[in-house]
């Protein structure tokens, strides 16, 4: 019965499917079948609309109750209030945003918080009001040029052997170092409590911003901090895609001879050479092993999907349709399939194919669908969809999540504006996208189930985010 997903997870719309089938059986006059279906329906747990997403993306249906105490200086002399504030804010935000914790509100915390293991009072934490399962605490010392952080993760319901993590970090006593240390510690906690998936806290987002007067490629920390300009080409530069190892940034730029793929070395901090292909060249995409690039090129007359080595050599064409083919993306888990956008049936739709161009499958069935992004675990596509379209019809443009195997989908954004260019976090639990809902185009972030949506940028017009691979 194709209402039930192959992974033994019941999808909410499978409810509708089952009810539909039951009604169908009644109409066809097959009471016994109908009874069987009815029994099945009664036995099914009441599936919330988002459970299959939570499970599939590792967000988890039940979250760990985590208390995060402010770190303190170990002694009055070794204190630096600025570093402490930045560290504590960053640590709190990283854990709060992780998507796998229920962070206990500070208003429930006891007055005295521990700064080392000796000071932990277990029943102040594992009982109401905090009623925490886990506790993060520690201290930050700054003396001279050096900062030392000691942090612990304690299972406060396990008094006999509570320590899950005990870490010490040493770095310069600067604000960026304090921020980075908080990110590292948060990632350790998330890795340990999040089923072995590394956290995002040190990841980067590359995007397009026009705030310098031209559309250039910019970068920022995953939480919106440290926004900085990368390219200075004074033309229109679009579609940034960072390589899996983080060393190279590919993008498309309007040169004097047309749109070409450009390559920027993050290590060397400058452009490196990449061949001019001719025609209009757009939307480069890295294979997960970093060895190949997929791209759209009209060098042969019409835009088609090509694959080349990451040097630009050995270009070979994969698609063959007169209408536009653009925006390829690789399956990051297998490196063996490519999803892309094709206008071959008039309005753009999303398709998948093997990375040699065979086995073309259509994914979306209506409307105007663009900007696919493949989840790190290979299971899902997110994309931007105008389900109702047509000349004159405004048509809401929203981010949708689809399970590729079953084609079941869920709408993730509902708050208006044009929502486009979703990109997955390395942990597969977050999606960042562009939205015009505030009146200008900005980069927004959310959990992969559509909750917790908030903006990361405010200045100028910011579009086309691309999340790093780690």
């Amino acid at each position, binding site marked *: 019965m194709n209402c039930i997903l192959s992974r033994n997870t019941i999808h909410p719309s499978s409810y509708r499917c089952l009810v539909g089938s039951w009604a169908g059986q009644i109409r066809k006059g097959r009471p016994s079948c109908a009874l069987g279906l009815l029994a099945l329906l009664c036995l099914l747990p009441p599936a919330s609309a988002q459970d299959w997403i939570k499970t599939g993306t590792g967000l988890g249906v039940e979250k760990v109750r985590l208390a995060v105490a402010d770190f303190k200086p170990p002694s009055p002399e070794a204190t630096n209030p600025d570093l402490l504030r930045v560290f504590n804010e960053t640590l709190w935000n990283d854990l709060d945003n992780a998507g796998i914790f229920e962070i206990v509100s500070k208003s429930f915390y006891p007055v005295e918080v521990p700064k080392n293991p000796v000071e932990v009072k277990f029943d102040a934490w594992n009982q109401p009001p905090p009623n925490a399962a886990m506790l993060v605490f520690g201290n930050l010392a700054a003396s001279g040029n050096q900062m030392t952080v000691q942090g612990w993760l304690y299972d406060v319901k396990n008094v006999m052997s509570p320590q899950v993590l005990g870490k010490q970090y040493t770095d310069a006593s600067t604000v960026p170092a304090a921020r980075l240390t908080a990110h590292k510690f948060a990632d350790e906690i998330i890795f340990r409590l999040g089923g072995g998936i590394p956290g995002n806290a040190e990841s980067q987002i590359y995007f397009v911003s026009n705030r310098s007067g031209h559309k250039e490629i910019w970068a920022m920390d995953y939480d919106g901090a440290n926004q900085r300009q990368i390219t200075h080409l004074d033309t229109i530069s679009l579609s940034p895609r960072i390589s899996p190892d983080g060393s190279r940034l590919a993008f498309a730029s309007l040169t004097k001879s047309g749109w070409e793929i450009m390559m920027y070395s993050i290590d060397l901090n400058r452009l490196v050479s990449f061949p001019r292909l001719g025609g209009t060249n757009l939307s480069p995409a890295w294979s997960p092993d970093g060895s190949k690039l997929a791209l759209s090129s009209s060098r042969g007359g019409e835009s088609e999907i090509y694959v080349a080595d990451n040097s630009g050599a050995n270009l070979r064409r994969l698609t063959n349709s007169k209408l*536009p083919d653009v925006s390829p993306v690789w399956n990051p888990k297998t490196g063996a399939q490519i999803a892309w956008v094709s206008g071959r049936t008039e309005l753009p739709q999303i398709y998948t194919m093997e990375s040699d161009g065979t086995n073309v499958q259509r994914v979306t069935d209506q409307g105007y669908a663009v900007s696919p992004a493949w989840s790190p675990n290979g299971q899902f596509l997110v994309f931007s969809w105008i389900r109702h379209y047509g000349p004159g019809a405004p048509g809401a443009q929203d981010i949708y999540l689809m399970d590729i195997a079953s084609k079941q989908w869920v709408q993730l954004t509902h708050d208006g504006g044009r929502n486009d260019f979703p990109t997955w976090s390395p942990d597969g639990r977050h999606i960042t996208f562009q939205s015009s809902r505030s009146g200008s185009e900005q980069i927004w972030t959310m959990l992969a189930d559509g909750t917790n949506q908030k903006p990361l940028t405010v200045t100028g017009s910011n579009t086309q985010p691309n999340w790093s691979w780690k």
Partner: protein
Amino acid sequence: MKQQPVKWITLILALCGILFLGACHKKTPPPPPPPPPPPASAPTASLTANPNTIQKGQSTTLNWETTNATDVSIGGIGAVTPTGSQLVTPADSTTYNLTAKGPGGTQTATARVTITSPPAPPAAPSVSEEELFSQNVKDIYFDYDKADIRFDQRMVVIGDVSFLKQHPNIHFTIEGHCDERGSTEYNLALGDSRANAVKSALVQGGVQASNIKTISLGKEKPFCTEHAESCWQENRRGHFVYQR
């Protein structure tokens, strides 16, 4: 010596006699003629026109100065005071001649006034090729999400082909544009298709392909920004740009 004083008296008498005789024979000289008056000074004359270049229909001022002249005249005007000025409006370029006559003679002076024509209205041969291009080569408009040439645009293509074949040396670029809806990347590919579709239609009509460059601008450089179909249609086009 009695003889010497006689000699003296004789001499004196002889001298007187000569004198008397001379005086007797000499006529009374006539009074000298009155001195001629100092010779009369020649007249001086100068004549200027300010300004000395004017457009047809405009006026200029003649200024003249003479000295030692009793009778001053300017050709075309008549007798004038020895020094003066006059506004004139010549129909054509003219040389004014001033004659100053006086007891000392005659002096002339001239001033030339040149008429220039106002700039001629732009006659067809003097319009730049670029202006001709933009007047005659019309942009091609497209339907939503389409890159094929719409039926009502075909006459426009024909008109463009006709002009371009008459001017086979003109090089130009076709820019493909899209409206604001739809995605950045897809619109760049669609704009590329639109530019190529226009190029194909022109080449099929006989325009030299090597004169034509194409570029997609997607929705990056819109012609208008209102969120309405009238503006969206404005933006869905193949736009011609003359190459110098």
